[in-house]
């Protein structure tokens, strides 16, 4: 653990209390990051930096504020804290806004989540450049004469985070991340230049797929969109590809938070214990996946992390409720944020499912769209592949689906066997029936 960080945090707690706060929580994040991208077989951007960010939650006279700064000069910090505490006292009193009851800090799991790649320190600038070059090369080769432009990029970083409260919480976490990304723009008929991409993110370099595979996939995804057009409005089965599930799922999840419920902006507020989706949907929040991008031992409130089933066979079991809104709502808190979200995979591949569905659309991209958390109404643009008997027959774009989440998730008929592992949302592809896909 970095002693300099620890000393600074301890000093800030002391300074905040000396300035008149009754309690405080201090968080110091330190981050080193490198980014390299290539285009036209040479570096396009090289970027590197180290940053620190200090956050201070101030509790004074029953009042609350949150301060953050990157100006860590002690003189500047002292003024900053004094001003902040004085200003906090001008706000309205809120007896519910306190640091959590320390009993929630207890019971922290003692496991190694394997969030640090031991090989990170030896990741050299040369190795980074080689990685991006090979990514670009594979994409260019696969794209062939259809390539207008290819960009390949890697980003990596090492993070440390230290969190302390004046009522006894102490938490430290560190991690590494690597991400690789390739995108291609292709020449199509007329002025259309379809763009497609592929990426992967992992805690350890060994858990990334080969750069070659990502480069090839980026090109394949782009080429698959050549000749895309909209077709007639039709009611069809659709498959939402694994890496795109998170975007549509976000509309359902937005209604699962304590604040949405307390502020009457949740269509799920009165649905706990009731079905909100078909029996095929189970959702687990699992903080303990080794090497998981959302894995953690404690959350933002300092609560010891717990694995929870949020939705079980379509029945809504839990909400995401932090300390403050648990007190406002008068309910037991869970956690104010998700760690790793998992939808358990089914037995069959997308390819097998497609064969059985007859005619349908495989959704490989969303565009625009939004979701109203108060009512559950949603509408979003799609692109992908029209398929028949398991084979793609036409790329489609500029089409749309619209529904209410409470109806939409009841149309889920199958979960595929392909969870996307390069995200904290480990979702497999999902299959829905009777979806109105609007186009011409």
């Amino acid at each position, binding site marked *: 653990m970095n002693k300099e960080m620890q000393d600074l945090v301890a000093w800030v707690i002391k300074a905040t209390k000396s300035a008149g706060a009754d309690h405080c929580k201090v968080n110091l994040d330190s981050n080193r990051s490198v980014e390299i991208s290539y285009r036209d077989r040479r570096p396009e951007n090289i970027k590197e930096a*180290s940053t620190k960010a200090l956050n201070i939650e101030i509790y004074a006279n029953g009042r609350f504020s949150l301060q953050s700064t*990157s*100006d860590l000069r002690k003189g500047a910090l002292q003024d900053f804290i004094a001003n902040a505490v004085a200003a906090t006292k*001008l706000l309205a009193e809120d007896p519910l806004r306190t640091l959590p009851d320390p009993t929630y800090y207890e019971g922290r799991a003692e496991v190694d989540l394997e969030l640090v790649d031991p090989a990170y320190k030896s990741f050299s600038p040369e190795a980074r450049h080689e990685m991006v070059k090979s990514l670009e090369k594979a994409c260019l080769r696969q794209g062939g004469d259809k390539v207008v432009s290819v960009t390949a990029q890697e*980003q990596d970083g090492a993070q440390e985070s230290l969190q302390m409260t004046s009522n006894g919480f102490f938490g430290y976490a560190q991690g590494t*991340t690597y991400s690789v990304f390739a995108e291609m723009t292709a020449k199509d008929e007329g*002025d259309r230049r379809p763009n497609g991409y592929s990426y992967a993110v992992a805690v350890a370099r060994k858990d990334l797929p080969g750069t070659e595979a990502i480069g090839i996939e980026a090109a394949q995804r782009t080429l698959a969109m050549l000749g895309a057009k909209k077709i007639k409005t039709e009611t069809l089965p659709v498959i939402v590809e694994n890496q795109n599930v998170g975007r549509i799922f976000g509309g359902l999840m937005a209604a699962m938070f304590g604040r949405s419920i307390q502020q009457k902006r949740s269509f799920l507020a009165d649905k706990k214990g009731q079905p909100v989706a078909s029996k095929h949907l189970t959702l687990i929040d699992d903080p303990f996946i080794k090497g998981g991008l959302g894995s953690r031992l404690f959350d933002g409130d300092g609560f010891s992390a717990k694995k929870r089933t949020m939705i079980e066979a379509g029945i809504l079991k839990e909400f995401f409720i932090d300390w403050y809104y648990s007190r406002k709502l008068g309910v037991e808190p869970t956690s104010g944020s998700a760690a790793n979200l998992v939808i358990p995979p089914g037995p069959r591949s997308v390819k097998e499912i497609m064969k059985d569905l007859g005619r349908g659309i495989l959704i490989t991209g969303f565009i625009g769209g939004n979701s109203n958390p108060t009512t559950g109404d949603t509408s979003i643009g799609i692109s992908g592949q029209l398929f028949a008997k398991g084979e793609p027959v036409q790329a489609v774009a500029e089409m*749309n689906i*619209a529904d209410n989440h409470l109806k939409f998730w009841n149309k889920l008929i199958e979960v595929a066997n392909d969870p996307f592992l390069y995200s904290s949302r480990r979702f497999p592809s999902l299959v829905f029936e009777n979806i109105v896909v609007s186009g011409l």
Partner: protein
Amino acid sequence: MTEMTRRSFLKTTAGVAAMGAAVPILSGGWPQLLAAEKPGYFEREFGISDALCRKVLAAALARGGDFADLYFEHTIGNWIILEDGQVNRAFSDVALGVGIRTVKGDQVGYGFTQELSEKSMLNAAAIAATIASGVRTKPAGKFSWLETKNYYPLEKLLTAVALEAKLPLVQKLNEKCFALSPLVVKVTANFHDQQKRILVVDSQGGKAEDLQPRDYLTALVVAEKDGRREQAGWNLGGRRDFSYFNQNAIDEIAAKAVHDALLLFDAVQPPAGEMPVVFAPGVTAILLHEAIGHGMEADFNRKKTSTYCTMIGKKVAEPFITIIDDGTIPNLLGSINFDDEGTPGQRTVLVENGILKSYMHDKISARFYKLKPTGNGRRESYQHYVQPRMRNTIMLAGAASAEDIIRGAQKGIYVQNVSNGQVNIGEGDFAFYVSQGRMIENGKLTATIKDINIMGNGPKMLQDITMVGNDLELHQGGTGACGKGGQSVPVGFGQPSCLVKSLTVGGVKS
């Protein structure tokens, strides 16, 4: 986290407070800032002298390069939030740092540091220098201040406005919303102010200093009727003096948010499919931003990844259509005295009488096209490198009346409020989310509609604008944030009423 795609998006969610890691309240102001009206803020506060800048720039050019620049930033932002009738939370944030960029052709090396010490800056400069591999080039021996106009003069620094003066704004807004209807059950009201000080110093001898204010007042209202709930929000803001937020502003925000929430109780589901779409003036100009604006940013064209890359000088719209991107409109959110590489704020004509005249350039694309930069080089913060970005993107007024335009559509959709949008640059396909609108039947506005996505193709849509109204309205909001390449910058927009003869409406009935 990697920005996974070059797709770009815009959000202008009125009233929705998305503040993951937000920021301060710093009451009473920081008196030391009041003396900072004269140029030289960073030298006075942080000891950034010309000699130090020259030394850092020399380090950034140690391996050659066309030019290098330094971008110093000191930003103070404050949020106050009213929920359940009380201002019981506040956030503030201070960002301080310098970004150092070395440019060679279209290649960029970038380092940044939060410590404004010589040692840290030289380290960051050494990282930036790695993009080049040739012989050292020398920075200019002398720097001269860029003189600019001021499109956002302030009577008082925002950091000097006391918290006590801000609290009544959200309290009155809350009271007003509840007073307007007994159906209102929840109100969230926020006030945000931000003061960004920047200093740009480049190796060619330019230096420019600015103070960019940004502020908004916003309400999000939930109403309940017969067990059903609806939400709507509105905001006003931009680069404004604090005095802008008076009773009139409060009344306008409350009236619009409450009116819109109540309207939605009568909303019906629109049909799905292709149909004529009429855009009301003002906030609906997200259409312009997505369908047209992004594709005219020069980096996409330089790389030939935009559908507009072969269209300069060609007819892209009917002759009654002129579209500009303008950084010089007083107090609009996208206005800038100079851009983030020191090019003066200006007005750029993108489409003139239907002909595509210009892209939006930063220094890199301007060199590529052998043109002058247009003042569109922008960045989110010192942690980000410059990209060509929009400022205030506006379609100028035409001749038609709004009634004629609605009549002209006969049967279709009337778009009144839009919350967000997105575009795929290469295909030109775009989408935007209509939070509220009306049906058009027999040339007249009928039932209210809500929560629909509308899609189209940018170049085709531009050709399909068949009527433009005489009622140009600039959106006076303060929350418009445009995302591109992982960076968010404030933008403005505006347009008159207009008719697009066909777009895909994502309704639910076929």
